[in-house]
């Protein structure tokens, strides 16, 4: 589903070259729930922006759903983002000017969907996250957990092949974080491929598989035993 080989990303300024990713490899199969972990500044976010086609990469190869995305122009990348990828951000990233319904509608609009189908999908997605009754509310009127659930509904509405989550519970308290995580696990069980970036080991432990990044390179998890420290967390996944 998502396969990166020898991928690199270099940020160049006039004085220095910084490798955000260096010879990075990852292969996420269809239906997997993968957590990408690592300390701050390790290149997690860079990985996510490249995986989500928000940025281009410098070297290597990236196959998304079997398609090489390196040569695509801006419009083609927009189309892929719109149809194949759903984003869940740490800061929710709802558009404050639009109400819940209109926020969920945004990706469907760009897909040029008919009004009836849009409406159906929006209601389905909102019901899925348990917020159908809040369709007319504005983001500012919702709690953080509710906002993130709207963001998830927005990501789900387009039936993407791949869900990319960036610290989805980072801005939430424990209670809300748990409900959001449970929602993600439900979605995974229904067959979605999820790649989640996080620095929270507890969260990462709930994924099927962990990929650890340090200094822009993936590190074999076998050498990092402390991530297996909590078997109860791992057990809850099954």
């Amino acid at each position, binding site marked *: 589903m998502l396969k990166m080989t020898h991928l690199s990303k270099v940020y160049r300024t006039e004085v220095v070259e910084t490798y955000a990713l260096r010879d990075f490899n990852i292969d996420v199969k269809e239906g997997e729930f993968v957590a990408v972990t690592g300390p701050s500044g390790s290149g997690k976010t860079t990985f996510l922006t490249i995986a989500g086609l928000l940025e281009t990469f410098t070297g290597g190869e990236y196959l998304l759903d079997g398609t090489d995305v390196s040569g695509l122009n801006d419009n083609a990348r927009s189309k892929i983002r719109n149809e194949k990828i759903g984003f869940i951000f740490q800061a929710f*990233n*709802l*558009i*404050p000017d639009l109400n819940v319904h209109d926020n969920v509608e945004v990706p469907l609009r760009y897909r040029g969907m008919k009004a009836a189908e849009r409406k159906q999908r929006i209601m389905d997605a909102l019901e899925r996250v348990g917020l159908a009754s809040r369709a007319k509310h504005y*983001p*500012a009127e919702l709690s953080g957990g509710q906002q993130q659930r709207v963001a998830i509904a927005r990501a789900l509405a387009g039936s993407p092949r791949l869900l990319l989550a960036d610290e989805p519970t980072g801005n939430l308290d424990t209670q809300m974080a748990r409900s959001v995580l449970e929602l993600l696990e439900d979605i995974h069980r229904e067959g979605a491929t999820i790649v989640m970036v996080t620095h929270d080991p507890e969260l990462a432990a709930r994924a099927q598989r962990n990929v650890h990044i340090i200094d822009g390179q993936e590190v074999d998890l076998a050498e990092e035993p402390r991530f297996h420290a909590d078997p109860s967390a791992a057990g809850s996944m099954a």
Partner: protein
Amino acid sequence: MFAYYLQLGLRSLRRNSVLTALMVLAIAVGIGAAMTTLTVMHLLSGDPLPGRSAHIFYPQVDATPAGYTGTPPHPMDMLDYRSAVDLWRAHHADRQALVADSPVKLQAPESKGPPRMLTMLSTTAGFFPMFKVPFQYGSAWTPADDEGRARVAVISSYLNNRLFGGADSVGHMLLLRNTAVRIVGVLAPWRPSPQFYDVRGGRYAQGNTASFYSRTEDVFTPFFSSLQINDGHFQQFSCWAMPKKPGHLVDSPCAWVGLWVQLDTPAKIHAYRRFIANYARHQKALGRFANTDTRMMSLMQWLAFNHVVPSNVKLQAWLAFAFLAICLFNTVGLLLAKFLRRAGEIGVRRALGASRGAVFSQCLTEAGLIGLVGGLGGLLLTLLGLWIVRHQDTPYADLVHLDLSMLVVTFVLALLVSLLAGTLPALRASRIAPALQLKTL
């Protein structure tokens, strides 16, 4: 505290220098346009006799002859000869003067120049003291000269410069048409705006009243003397019937003489109104008048009645203020954008203890700063605008200048406009809630 706001304002203005420049430009252009037209309006609608105009009146009677069948507007803007002279001779006012214009051929035997055509004002001795006309050399003629039909004249400073190089020409002779007259007085530069004593017929001018702001006549002669000197060259304002001999209007059925009177007390004003009313009734009884309508307006009333300010000038003022309003909306919009763009900063300030009032004052200071700079730019544009008006081919071009009061008005207007423009955005900015960081976008 104000110094701190000033410093913050300056820094903020420097940070968005393009936006700042746009706002300053908008205010400057708006102020420049508004002040240029306002200054012209101010100069053209001013009081030509400050402090005295309330005592100056223009009495009129309806001299439509009995038996006249047409429908003229009554009373006409001027008097017929007989009514004018009757009212003048009665000497019921503190001062009084007859006025009539005519074109006259003038030669100065000493200056050897070609003959020239000038406009001559035929008037009476009361004219000069009543209107406080300033003299450079000599003095006005005496009331005895009026009745004695003396061959004397007063000339303008402009003509004196042209003919005598500005030297004292009292006692020199001029040839008016074929008559030699002796100069008894030379006026100091005198430029009433408008040339109020010749204002009439403004109602019929279709707004083209710029000529009311012409220079004064160059030659002033005693009324009765000039009737002889320039006989056949007088022009009627209007006639009820054709005069027997064109240009000879004495005792003709024509309106062509103006009468100005000075009345110093309300009692005298009242008495004079009664006097002209009695005169009109008496003339009707004698069978000379068909009607008894009379009218007596004060100088400023008369100017307003004649719509002296040209409609083009008024139209320009309208345009300029509409333009200023657009600039104002523009500035409000841009200021709003500017302040709200700093919502994060303001939120943090609020969290750190700035009160609503403090945020409001800070924003308003910034707006005032823009107004001050815009006002300066507006002043320069006003000077440019007035320079352009001065170089236009209009009779009032030479009158146009920026006086101190208008200079002050310029800055007050600029500050007012920008504070007005700043209030709404500043209010909006002061409503931003305190926050240590931005929660939403």
